[in-house]
């Protein structure tokens, strides 16, 4: 029973975005949004890859949720992503209410050991807090049994394309109108180079302050630094120059050839249109005769 408390929950960013979006679209008067989480379960780790929200109403002592809706949405999702299964449910807000127990009961029937994720979209603590819980049954045997809500470790995970997407979305934080355009690649390279420069600055400052005795040297950092320096490949400078130059030449040639191809395409279009014109002129003559 305690084995489940060693669970780690990994959440993809798209799940959080969907939850926030559902919260923004909630009906008038509602202040909580609930929905189903889908993903994969793998030994000690539950990976949540998608979610969808469910219309529900909360009253004093009972909860109304559209179960048919939940089942139908899951069927539809299964058609597109057959490997995803229900792994739990989410709710916005910061606390676990008694209604949560009722909802959790329903999900316990759908899948074994569902997890419960809360996302604090109301910003009650000034931050968007994300917590995950598992309901662990407790109680005396042969007497009333209940469940205890136990927090489990939750962390974000993202694949590389998702990180690239997040990088782009981050830029909206800095613009007043919250708009950003997808940037051309050269700008991205400049940005990445700037980032690297900043990181190198920080590292150099740290090294200097350690040498000047202002800071305590940390051996883990020192080892990491040694790894960093060692990982720069050692190459004969002449060979390196030659390799650089030949790469440069290749790229320039490719650029030249592709612009040549484009010009050829334009010519092709124009010439075929010219011949169409000629044919037309000739057939006009034929008609006149």
């Amino acid at each position, binding site marked *: 029973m305690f084995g489940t408390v060693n669970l780690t929950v990994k959440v993809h960013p798209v799940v959080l975005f969907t939850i926030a*979006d559902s919260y923004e679209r909630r009906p008038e008067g509602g202040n909580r949004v609930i929905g189903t989480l889908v993903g994969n379960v793998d030994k000690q780790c539950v990976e949540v890859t998608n979610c969808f929200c469910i219309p529900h109403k909360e009253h004093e002592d009972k909860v109304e949720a559209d179960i048919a809706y939940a089942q139908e949405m899951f069927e539809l999702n299964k058609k597109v992503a057959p490997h995803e299964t229900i792994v739990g449910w989410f709710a916005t807000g910061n606390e676990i209410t008694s209604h949560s127990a009722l909802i959790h009961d329903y999900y316990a029937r759908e899948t074994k050991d569902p997890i419960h994720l809360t996302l604090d979209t109301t910003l009650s603590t000034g931050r968007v807090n994300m917590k995950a819980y598992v309901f662990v049954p407790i109680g005396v045997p042969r007497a009333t049994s209940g469940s205890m809500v136990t927090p489990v470790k939750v962390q974000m995970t993202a694949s590389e394309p998702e990180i690239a997407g997040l990088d782009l979305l981050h830029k909206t934080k800095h613009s007043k109108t919250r708009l950003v355009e997808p940037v051309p690649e050269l700008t991205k390279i400049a940005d990445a180079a700037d980032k690297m420069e900043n990181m190198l600055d920080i590292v150099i400052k740290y090294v200097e302050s350690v040498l000047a005795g202002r800071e305590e040297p940390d051996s883990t950092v020192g080892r990491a630094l040694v790894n960093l320096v060692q990982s720069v490949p050692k190459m004969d400078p002449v060979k390196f120059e030659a390799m650089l130059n030949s790469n440069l030449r290749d790229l320039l040639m490719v650029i030249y050839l592709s612009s040549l191809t*484009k010009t050829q395409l334009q010519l092709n*279009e124009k010439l075929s249109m010219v011949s169409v014109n000629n044919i037309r002129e000739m057939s006009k003559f034929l008609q006149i005769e």
Partner: protein
Amino acid sequence: MSDRGSRRNTENENRIESVQIDGLVVMKLIKQCHEAESSGNAFAQGALLGLVAETRPDARLEITHCFPFPGLNDETIDDEDFQLTMMRRLRQVNVDHQHVGWYQSAQFANFLSPTLLDTQFAYQTSIEESVCLIFDTAKTSQGFISLKAFRLTAEAIKMYKDGDFSPDVVKDLKLSFESLMEEVPIIIKNSHLMNALLLELKEQLPLDIESAQFLDLGTSGTLETQLRVMMDNVDELNQESIKFNKHQNLVLKQYQDKTRWIQKRQLENQARASRGEDPLPEEDISKAFKPIPPPSRLNPLILSGTIANTADEVSEFCSQSLGKLFITEPLQNAKMSASNAQ
């Protein structure tokens, strides 16, 4: 909805100036397209939901939600049914339910195909403002998001309406491969809550997943694939050109035959008139010489468009690789001068 009648009248002015996409849609697209790619499907398709901001003349299309279509290999699923059920369910949770377009994943700009144009035509005639969003999975795995929105131009729609792709029609409408599809600029928007979420995410994402992958110097692999694709397309375009040239030659020969035949008849008639006989009955020229059907210009246009797109992508890729090389050069020089100074 009441001004839908007046919108139909101004069909020619119904341009979409820009497309505004929610951050949520971008993330969902990334997830779905990459999942499809890793699970072996050729490409992923889906529908876009949103609304049109009516501020004339700057008509903006807002995309607020999207959902994927089930895999194309499974024939038992009814597409229409799936779409309707999905949209009905989404409406219950207050998601904008106006269908404003569709999306497709692609590898390196090879998305132009007759099916794509057909689908976009069907969409654009039923829903005025629909766009087709192309998401490039190969480039995103390198670290660059590549999202493009396309619409068919008014001339292309006219050509599709007639269903006639002969060279004459193409010349009349002054269509070239560049004016087949027009690209609409994309803007990405996030709400304030999303911004707060992003700040939280930035702190939470473990640092070792952060990849500065696009600073990678190794470029030959992707370049090779792109160039190979381009070479294949150029070969096909060559074939189409040869077909077109053959057709032109045939038409020319036929024209010469016709002139000769007419002259012969005239001489015959003159000879008969001088002998006092009746002239030969007028024969219909077109029955004697059947008109040769011209080859469709659709394929060459598509191929030229694809080649132009690939050429653009290749140049962009090369320019950013050049940038990377230019960065390494002074670094290498600095290292050399440092080691020389010691």
